[in-house]
């Protein structure tokens, strides 16, 4: 905790807008009350989440150090800032940056708070936020004050609220946009921020804007609410509006957003968003977090009924001037350049690296003579010093027109093209001129096991490793491969957006000879373009240490097998999932611990990946336990279900997905009693030994995965739609992953009870 904390309030009292200041005062008071035990820890947890103050890995006071599980004895030993979350444990502070828009002063302030309260690194997230790690909860009020003094809020950055509203980072300068969505994103951000109708959600609510339909832009179709700019001709005039999507999302059960309206007039955007928020708050699931996102409500009600309820709600809303007040300023909304337009006059000797950087990091704006440049940040990280240097650069070349991107980079807009060489040299001096933006080198990764409580495998470790290896061959790489997108998540929750890319990976684990082995599930053929137009599907789990080889093999096969101009997405669809899976089949094997212990350590780590005290039991070495075989068979079956769905055999797909879960449950029940064959008996055994005992419960998702199976059993004879079959397959994969995890936990417990010498 910083010694200067009590002093910032007075120092900044005239710089903070009163409403923001008052909110932070209240939060600071709540921090003190919780410290004194006068607020319930659950209430405080949601309170701080709504201020963007998140938990971080090991904040329960336990950490496995590679040898043993160690208790972290923080000074305030008893105090908590939430259930099972110790007061003094470092946490994460998320900072909202609406539509990614920033100025130089804000960059400098972010640099200050990253340096003084965190580890000197500011991390850009996949939703255009900033995150700081290792922050003490008592440092958060002064941190928030310092940000508020330059117009940045952390309000509703986490928790069950409207999260950062994202938008295409080239909105306004984009060559293919219908119109600039920036003023709309800004207006909706501040209309919904703290809005009473957005305070009673069961889960978070994410909004995105895109200026055009076909590019990646704001990844609208994976959002709870997405708006794509469109126009129409009406009575001789051009009207602005939005193609509105609702109910998209990634996570454990990814869904594409559904088209709510082909043309929503611009004036209707705030009230319809408000009406949707009210319906979500009123009818959305509140008790079971696992089904509380709006996508589940839309699925449950059906799109037509959902729309009817929203329009009914819209009709009953009391008028609010803010719905349309912002529209008066929209025609005048225009960023300004610092310098007049110019064209690049490249001399005979361009600086080293300039040509490659220009090729990948420079975007020609719709405004002649101007370009937008991307500052590619490895894993989204930038130091405080670099932030200050970037602020200088933003003042020197542009009118502080800065945006963060969902690819975890920063762009400077309105660069006069003739300044490119000088700008490149200045960026290079700050180590900010790395090429490869938007290419296979520009890998997106969530924090994963580095800092996230839910991380299963090291997404950042893998991303860094892949980046280093790919960079070594970047210059000789075929353009078709260079243009691919890789995204990595540490777990199934998809913060790395692994569904919306060519090669996606999410962390899972497997058991081998009494050890746990870090793995990544491989997903192929998702689309970054078309606003995340389709999602990749899982083809198998590969040990983490074999992922670089996996990438190399898949990209090589793509190069060999693609027809002229065929995209990776189209290629994977053409060859089919069976061929995709066959491509990596041999890479899924795990060498024994004796043969290659490196497989049992995750990237950028030195600790054994296992829950340490798992002994080398009788199953060690080359011997594989029957359940490992059985669960592998379940995975194959779930994959067959995917293949069936691909062929349009919906009923077969659904039945096979269900059977894969049933066999997984049967295998687990077999660990406790003679495995029954009758499905009802399997379910009864599963309930008795794994559900009622909570043995199958996921440490974070609770009963969710078990309920997938139980629900599938209940509904196994019902007619099913293709959408539901798709969902069932996703659920089956997660159930099988959970079965692996359950078996791993049981092995660990058994080893604890009877250690092997």
């Amino acid at each position: 905790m910083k010694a200067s904390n009590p002093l910032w309030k007075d120092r900044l009292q005239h710089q903070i807008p009163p409403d923001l200041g008052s909110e932070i005062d209240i939060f600071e008071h709540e921090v003190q009350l919780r410290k004194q035990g006068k607020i319930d820890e659950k209430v405080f947890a949601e309170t701080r989440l709504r201020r963007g103050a998140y938990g971080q890995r090991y904040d329960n006071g336990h950490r496995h150090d590679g040898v043993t599980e160690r208790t972290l004895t923080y000074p305030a030993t008893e105090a908590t800032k939430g259930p099972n979350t110790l007061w003094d444990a470092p946490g994460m502070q998320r900072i909202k940056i609406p539509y990614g828009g920033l100025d130089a002063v804000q960059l400098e302030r972010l640099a200050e708070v990253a340096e003084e309260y965190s580890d000197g690194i500011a991390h850009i997230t996949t939703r255009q936020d900033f995150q700081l790690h290792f922050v003490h909860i008592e440092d958060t009020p002064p941190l928030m004050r310092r940000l508020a003094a330059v117009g940045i809020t952390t309000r509703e950055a986490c928790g069950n609220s409207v999260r950062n509203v994202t938008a295409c980072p080239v909105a306004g300068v984009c060559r293919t946009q219908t119109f600039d969505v920036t003023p709309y994103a800004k207006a909706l951000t501040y209309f919904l921020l703290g809005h009473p109708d957005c305070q009673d959600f069961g889960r978070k609510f994410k909004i995105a804007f895109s200026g055009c339909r076909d590019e990646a832009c704001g990844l609208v179709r994976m959002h709870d609410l997405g708006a794509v700019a469109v126009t129409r001709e009406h009575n001789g005039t051009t009207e602005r509006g939005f193609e509105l999507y609702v109910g998209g999302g990634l996570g454990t059960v990814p869904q594409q957003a559904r088209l709510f309206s082909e043309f929503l007039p611009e004036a209707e955007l705030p009230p319809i968003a408000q009406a949707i928020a009210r319906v979500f708050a009123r009818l959305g699931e509140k008790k079971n977090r696992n089904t509380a996102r709006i996508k589940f409500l839309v699925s449950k009600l059906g799109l037509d009924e959902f729309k009817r309820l929203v329009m009914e709600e819209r009709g009953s809303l009391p008028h609010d001037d803010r719905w349309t007040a912002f529209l008066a300023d929209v025609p005048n909304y225009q960023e300004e350049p610092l310098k007049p337009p110019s064209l690049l006059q490249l001399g005979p000797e361009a600086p080293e690296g300039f040509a490659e950087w220009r090729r990948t990091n420079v975007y020609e704006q719709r405004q002649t003579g101007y370009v937008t440049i991307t500052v590619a940040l490895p894993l989204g990280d930038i130091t405080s010093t670099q932030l200050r240097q970037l602020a200088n650069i933003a003042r020197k070349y542009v009118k502080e027109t800065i945006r963060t991107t969902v690819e975890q980079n920063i762009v400077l807009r309105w660069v006069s093209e003739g300044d490119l060489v000088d700008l490149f040299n200045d960026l290079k001096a700050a180590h900010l001129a790395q090429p490869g933006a938007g290419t296979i080198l520009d890998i997106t990764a969530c924090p994963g096991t580095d800092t996230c409580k839910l991380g299963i495998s090291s997404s950042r470790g893998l991303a860094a490793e892949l980046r280093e290896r790919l960079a070594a061959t970047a210059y000789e790489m075929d353009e078709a491969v260079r243009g691919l997108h890789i995204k990595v998540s540490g777990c199934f929750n998809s913060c790395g957006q692994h569904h919306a890319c060519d090669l996606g990976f999410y962390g899972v684990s497997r058991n081998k000879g009494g050890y746990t082995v870090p793995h990544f599930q491989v997903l192929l053929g998702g689309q970054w373009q078309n606003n995340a137009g389709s999602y990749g599907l899982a083809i198998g789990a590969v040990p983490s240490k074999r992922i670089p080889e996996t990438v190399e093999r898949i990209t090589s096969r793509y190069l060999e097998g693609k027809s002229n101009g065929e995209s990776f997405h189209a290629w994977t669809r053409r060859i089919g999932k069976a061929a995709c899976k066959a491509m990596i089949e041999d890479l899924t094997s795990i060498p024994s611990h004796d043969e290659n212990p490196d497989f049992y350590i995750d990237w950028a780590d030195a600790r054994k990946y296992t829950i340490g005290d798992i002994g080398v039991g009788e199953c060690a070495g080359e011997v594989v336990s029957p359940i490992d075989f059985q669960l592998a068979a379940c995975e194959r079956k779930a994959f067959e279900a995917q293949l069936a769905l691909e062929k349009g055999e919906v009923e077969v797909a659904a039945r096979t997905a269900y059977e894969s879960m049933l066999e997984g449950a049967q295998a687990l029940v077999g660990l406790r009693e003679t495995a029954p064959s009758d499905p009802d008996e399997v379910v009864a055994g599963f309930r008795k030994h794994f559900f009622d005992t909570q043995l199958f419960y996921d440490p974070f998702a609770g009963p969710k995965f078990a309920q997938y199976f139980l629900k599938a059993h209940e509904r196994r004879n019902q007619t099913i739609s293709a959408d539901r079959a798709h969902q069932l397959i996703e659920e089956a994969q997660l159930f099988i992953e959970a079965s692996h995890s359950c078996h791993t936990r049981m092995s660990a417990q058994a080893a604890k009870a009877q250690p092997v010498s």
Partner: protein
Amino acid sequence: MQHFRVKFFVQPDLRPDLGAAIPVFHRWIQESRLEEMLIDVADYRHVPGGPGVLLVAHDAFYSLDQAEDRLGLLYTRRTELEGSTQEKLRHAFAAAARACAELEKEPEFAGHLVFSGAECEFSVNDRLLAPNTEETWNLLRPELHALLDSVWGAGSYRLARAGEARDVFRVSAQCETPANLNLFLAG
């Protein structure tokens, strides 16, 4: 005055593999090698000019910092310390020197990581308590002299303010003759 930072630089001709610090720091956690409660290791090798590999403790950060393209061990005090400014100053220098000495001994770095005891950088990671101004300089200069006189000897070194107004308060210190890092260990 609180939240002191001290950086000792690696001898300029050495280019150690920073990845080697990952197992070393994890081992330090296992063995509780330092006085603080050690929590975790963060790998920032991908960030040019960044903290390299970071050892996170409750009270402090230890990083193989590469700021301004100069590799060194940076100690950053996070929590408050009791005592006089001089005591806190000596504590920070001693903690940094101890970590350097421990790192040099690690087999992963044998011969590849040697810190200079004749140069360091001192800073205060709190712009409100210690802005990078003449006033702070006047306040802290006597304290730094008191410490460095006892370690390097009066008149044998130069102190210079570093950084711009928006930076944290920073001072670079350079001894005119070679000096042993262990001199700072006494605290």
